């Protein structure tokens, strides 16, 4: 089973100290990408719930740049310490409550210098975490669930900890780059604490608050000066200078100073402790990103409109990186001054070349589904599958089709369907409504609709794309403007073996298109022309499908199914009527059974026998997608579980949050062969993947574009489906992914070290003798070179080890 399509953008990524790796939180794991190639190198697996925070232990000297340690915190209530070059888990700390955010000030303020010094300090490795107090969660209660607490990470189990602040929802904590302050935003306020110095456990953090009249979205601390910037929902960027000069610095003389409040604190609200507050207003919508450059001279801001703005802090001069095409979520700079990254809401992480702000490369996750206008909901087919290579073509927000390899969870390329820039937040005026791929994956077809303004200027166009032979991308072959006059295209289907396609329209006709390249053999100057037009009693044509051998074309004309000879364009026969208009049609493999699905106003799944022209059986199920295997007569449907069924008490446990089911049928048998329940089935789609003949797999992409590829016939997945299939999100990884899938599991030669709580930051020393084992086994399983070298040299200098011990 392959699982993928996780979001890369749930929490900010982090560069490693040498800026060669980028760590990204991907669901329950942390994926490590190479910044040079943009490919995944390894992943840290161990958390059982989504990882929310990722802190790379910073290096204080150039020599330590190769150190690869990081802390992660997760909703499963644990904090873990990793060596991500390995990758290996060094330490796990139970925190009992789901952690939404965590900062460790001492990592920044007192960077590790020498190992022994660190070890002395290690007992006061204090972290501030934002947790959700699950003990007080009750339905409808107004308890403050979000707590900001102080933990000591040196202990393997953390007691309750001191609570600094309680909020309604868990907030994320922001720390200043110097490690002196941290704070949270809370509605229109920013609460800031200073980190008690000296390291005494019981020192109390002092707190101050900054006020604003709008909801604050994000804020950031200046690396050296006492400047706080905040971005609000209206797009303003506020800059407070001299923050906390009185309250935080002067400490005990707080009261005296407050008396001296004078009026020249321009722009500062009430009695906020700041010298001045200025406002920059460029962003038209909410600000999501604020980050200072490492020297504090520049401020990076970005927001919903997808433009990265660089402000010169002293002068307010701006520079832009426009047309990113998606709301920005995070901006991270790296130790390498020429590299930084910007994270977008469409699951893309762009690596920027720095002073020029060019996008060097993109780590592209699967893009989220586009938001369609209401009239196209349920009609658009925005996902298509290339069955042989396991590539999915997905319509995206920015008028592109993304090709995504489901088998190795990697974006391949993007094809610009409409030559337009996408501006997030603008009114949607152009929609890519459908994408279809031919069975061999060599031809793609898309339809787009330009919505009219005041009833003028609407345009429907149908495009045919040919795949490039070498790289997996497509080039435009033919554009058809208004293929069915002004009526919209309802479905596109490709002939299974030949270059032939059919498009059906709500305007009451369907057209068969053929490619004329067959005679001159060159794909380059091929074009598609209309071969035939057909209609049936002027009824809207809503779906189409070719039979397994391509000799019969089935077109749904509202609630009847018409069967045609696609070559001669002759109506062969008409299959009786369903109760409601058909939205999906599919032949069950090479058999004579025809599956039809309709959902409005009464959902129905019906299976017709095309040779006897009769209805075989039907269910009252709302179907989201239908797919059939090419060779066998089995087919699978993705059905939404009816609400009435779900509310049944006894079944509630089984379904929990899952709203859909994949049912596998075999030909005429109305009893499903197997059933899997899934989450977020609405808007999902399924397809059989038949790369190699021996293994038929079923791919399911859910409404959020997360996906799973599994073997429908293997016993292992049967078991899961029958008892308790854990849904998509909660499901533990069963197959190996990324690095481990390629090279196998690393040997656990340092298990013992993990148990040793004191050796938290001492990877170079070990109580055991690792060199005795490291060279045993396959060379593929060797640890990375820098680690290996260290170990090896240690083995040569045994004395040194002894001393440390």
């Amino acid at each position: 089973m392959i699982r993928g399509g996780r979001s890369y953008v749930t929490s900010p990524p982090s560069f490693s100290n040498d800026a060669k790796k980028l760590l990204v939180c991907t669901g329950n794991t942390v994926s490590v990408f190479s910044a040079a190639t943009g490919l995944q190198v390894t992943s840290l697996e161990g958390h059982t719930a989504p990882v929310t925070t990722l802190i790379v232990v910073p290096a204080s000297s150039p020599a330590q740049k190769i150190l690869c340690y990081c802390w992660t915190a997760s909703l499963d209530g644990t904090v873990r310490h990793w060596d991500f070059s390995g990758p290996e888990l060094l330490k796990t700390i139970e925190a009992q409550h789901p952690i939404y955010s965590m900062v460790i000030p001492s990592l920044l303020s007192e960077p590790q210098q020498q190992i022994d010094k660190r070890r002395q300090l290690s007992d006061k490795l204090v972290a501030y975490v934002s947790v959700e107090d699950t003990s007080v969660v009750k339905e409808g209660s107004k308890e403050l669930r979000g707590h900001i607490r102080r933990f000591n990470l040196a202990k393997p189990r953390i007691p309750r900890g001191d609570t600094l602040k309680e909020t309604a929802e868990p907030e994320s904590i922001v720390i200043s780059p110097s490690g002196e302050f941290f704070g949270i935003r809370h509605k229109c306020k920013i609460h800031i604490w200073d980190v008690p110095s000296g390291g005494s456990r019981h020192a109390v953090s002092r707190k101050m608050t900054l006020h604003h009249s709008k909801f604050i979205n994000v804020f950031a601390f200046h690396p050296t000066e006492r400047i706080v910037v905040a971005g609000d929902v209206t797009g303003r960027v506020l800059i407070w200078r001299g923050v906390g000069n009185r309250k935080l610095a002067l400490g005990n003389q707080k009261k005296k100073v407050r008396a001296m409040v004078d009026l020249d604190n321009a722009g500062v609200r009430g009695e906020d402790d700041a010298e001045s507050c200025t406002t920059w207003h460029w962003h038209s919508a909410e600000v999501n990103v604020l980050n200072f450059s490492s020297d504090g001279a520049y401020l990076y801001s970005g927001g919903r409109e997808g433009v990265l703005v660089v402000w010169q802090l002293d002068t307010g001069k701006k520079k832009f990186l426009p047309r990113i095409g998606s709301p920005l979520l995070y901006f991270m700079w790296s130790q390498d001054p020429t590299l930084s990254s910007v994270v977008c809401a469409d699951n893309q992480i762009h690596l920027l070349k720095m002073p020029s702000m060019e996008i060097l490369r993109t780590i592209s996750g699967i893009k989220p589904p586009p938001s369609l206008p209401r009239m196209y909901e349920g009609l658009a087919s925005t996902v298509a599958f290339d069955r042989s290579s396991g590539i999915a073509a997905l319509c995206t927000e920015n008028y592109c089709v993304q090709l995504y390899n489901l088998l190795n969870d990697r974006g391949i390329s993007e094809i610009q369907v409409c030559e337009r820039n996408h501006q997030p937040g603008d009114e949607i005026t152009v929609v890519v409504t459908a994408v279809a791929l031919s069975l061999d994956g060599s031809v793609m077809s898309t339809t787009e609709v330009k919505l009219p303004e005041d009833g003028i200027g609407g345009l429907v166009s149908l495009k045919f794309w040919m795949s490039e032979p070498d790289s997996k991308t497509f080039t435009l072959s033919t554009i058809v403007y208004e293929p069915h006059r002004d009526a919209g295209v309802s479905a596109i289907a490709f002939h299974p073996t030949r270059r032939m396609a059919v498009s059906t329209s709500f305007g009451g006709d369907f057209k068969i298109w053929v490619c004329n390249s067959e005679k001159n053999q060159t794909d380059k100057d091929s074009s598609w022309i209309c071969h035939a037009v057909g209609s049936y009693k002027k009824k809207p044509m809503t779906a189409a499908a070719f039979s397994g051998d391509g000799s019969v074309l089935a077109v749904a004309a509202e609630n009847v199914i018409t069967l045609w000879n696609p070559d001669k364009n002759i109506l062969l026969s008409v299959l009786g009527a369903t109760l409601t208009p058909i939205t999906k049609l599919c032949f069950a493999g090479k058999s004579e059974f025809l599956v039809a699905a309709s959902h409005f106003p009464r959902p129905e799944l019906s299976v017709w026998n095309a040779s006897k022209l009769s209805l075989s059986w039907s269910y009252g199920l709302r179907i989201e997608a239908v797919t059939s295997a090419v060779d066998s007569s089995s087919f699978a449907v993705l059905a939404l579980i009816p609400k009435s069924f779900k509310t049944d008490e006894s079944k509630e446990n089984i379904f929990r949050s899952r709203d859909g089911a994949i049912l596998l049928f075999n030909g005429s048998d109305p009893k499903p062969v197997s059933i899997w329940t899934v989450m977020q089935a609405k808007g999902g789609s399924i397809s059989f993947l038949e790369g190699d003949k021996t293994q038929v797999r079923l791919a399911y992409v859910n409404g959020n574009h997360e996906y799973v590829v599994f073997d429908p016939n293997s016993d292992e997945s049967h078991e899961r489906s029958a008892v308790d299939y854990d849904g998509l999100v909660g499901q533990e990884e069963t197959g190996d992914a990324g690095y481990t899938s390629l090279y196998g599991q690393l040997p656990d030669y340092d298990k013992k070290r993990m148990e040793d709580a004191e050796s938290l930051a001492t990877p170079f020393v070990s109580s055991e003798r690792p060199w005795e084992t490291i060279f045993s086994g396959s060379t593929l399983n060797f640890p990375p070179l820098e680690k290996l070298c260290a170990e090896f040299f240690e083995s040569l200098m045994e004395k040194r080890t002894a001393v440390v011990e």
Partner: protein
Amino acid sequence: MEEELRVRLNEHHQVSKVFPVKPKSTAKPVSESETPESRYWSSFKPHSIPNLVSSISALAFSPVHPHSLAVAHSASVSLFSSLSLSSSRRFSFRDVVSSVCFRSDGALFAACDLSGVVQVFDIKERMALRSLRSHTAPARFVKYPFQDKLHLVSGGDDGVVKYWDVAGSTVISDLLGHKDYVRCGDCSPVNDSMFITGSYDHTVKVWDARVDKSKWIAEINHGLPVEDVVYLPSGGMIATAGGNSVKVWDLIGGGKMVCSMESHNKTVTSLCVGRMDSAETRLVSVALDGYMKVFDYGRAKVTYSMRFPAPLMSLCLSPDGSTRVIGGSNGVVFAGKKKLRDAGEKKSLSLWSVRSEVDESRRRALRPTYFRYFQRGQSEKPSKEDYFVKQKKGLKLARHDKLLKKFRHKEALVSVLEEKKPANVVAVMEELVARRKLMKCVSNMEEGELGMLLGFLQRYCTVQRYSGLLMGLTKKVLETRAEDIKGKNEFKGLLRNLKREVNQEIRIQQSLLEIQGVIAPLMRIAGRS
């Protein structure tokens, strides 16, 4: 891996890209308009020689350079220079000339007329060298054998083919066999004593002068009165024209038909073998329907077809392939000239320049130690070992694109209206629709700009390609700007024109509907049967 990398590297171009507005692409013809073949045959630059009296009955090119052209028209033969197509000399006959032929060295030519006399002329002298009188009826063709300078073949309406000794003005043999008028003949390109003749008795007969039983050695039945015959370059195959069909026969294989071409609509009058650039040969035919057709007899396919404004009588292609002449029945010679690439000359030139090229390359090799190295300019060509860094090509933005980029929508619309390119205007309008700004632009327009917009709408709103958008827009403009338009003198004319356009369009639509009403029942009946 590398491939993947490349894809990723390409991606960043995609992210921040400006898309200039583009007009909708128009349909391309389904079939290829240009094949190498059609390019060759249409590259003859038309050049016609008008004002010759009566129809052009025969044409001939001299086989030696500079390939002067003999045109037989009415009772005279005119010689033209093939380079300038200017008339140089004219020979008069007693009756209408029916055929003309050059000797292999190009110094003499023979012609026959309807009085039955075959005459031989020196091209430099006005008077005939020999007059061969023997035909008792109009002579229809005369031919010099391929290399033989001493004999002639002629045929005529008396049904006799005569083999002449030119020097002695005597008939060597009378070849009897044709039962009707002999209209045409050709001599073998491989054997000087072999020739074929075609006759109105539907047959083509092959003769050999060495066999003197006055008996043909082979016979082919074309099935229709034969108008022209021609040997194909191999000498083993012939092509015959009769009625509206052209047939290719294999003589060596026993007179079997190889292929036939029947794409002419009227009688084919003349045949000729043409040699293309690629040394392939084609059969070219002209007919009374005014078409010249190029027939690829290897593939049995008509590869090119060209229409002329008169029935065509005769055809000839110059041996070097540079000139194509076709004689029309109205006394016009449709000549076509082609710029000849002097391949031979060039070759000799390059032979000469080999040495200097070597010198050149030695001279050119610049080293950083040379002074000239630093004087290289922009036009300096990269040498082989240079690593070529491609300059990023900037995107060219038109004025309206720049304005659209700055969100100055109305100005963009006005600037594109000034350009007077309707496709671009419509493209900008579509972009504005996508931005939901078109109606705002219209309502913001000032008077002069509104006039410009109305002028554009008046001119193009009924053009089918744009009418989908412009009809609706015109209505909206008139509705929203009614107050500004009403009563203004400068708009009166525009509105009147607009009204007229719309009325005309309505009339067209109505008549189209009527036609549809007529056709629909017919179609239905046709569909039923």
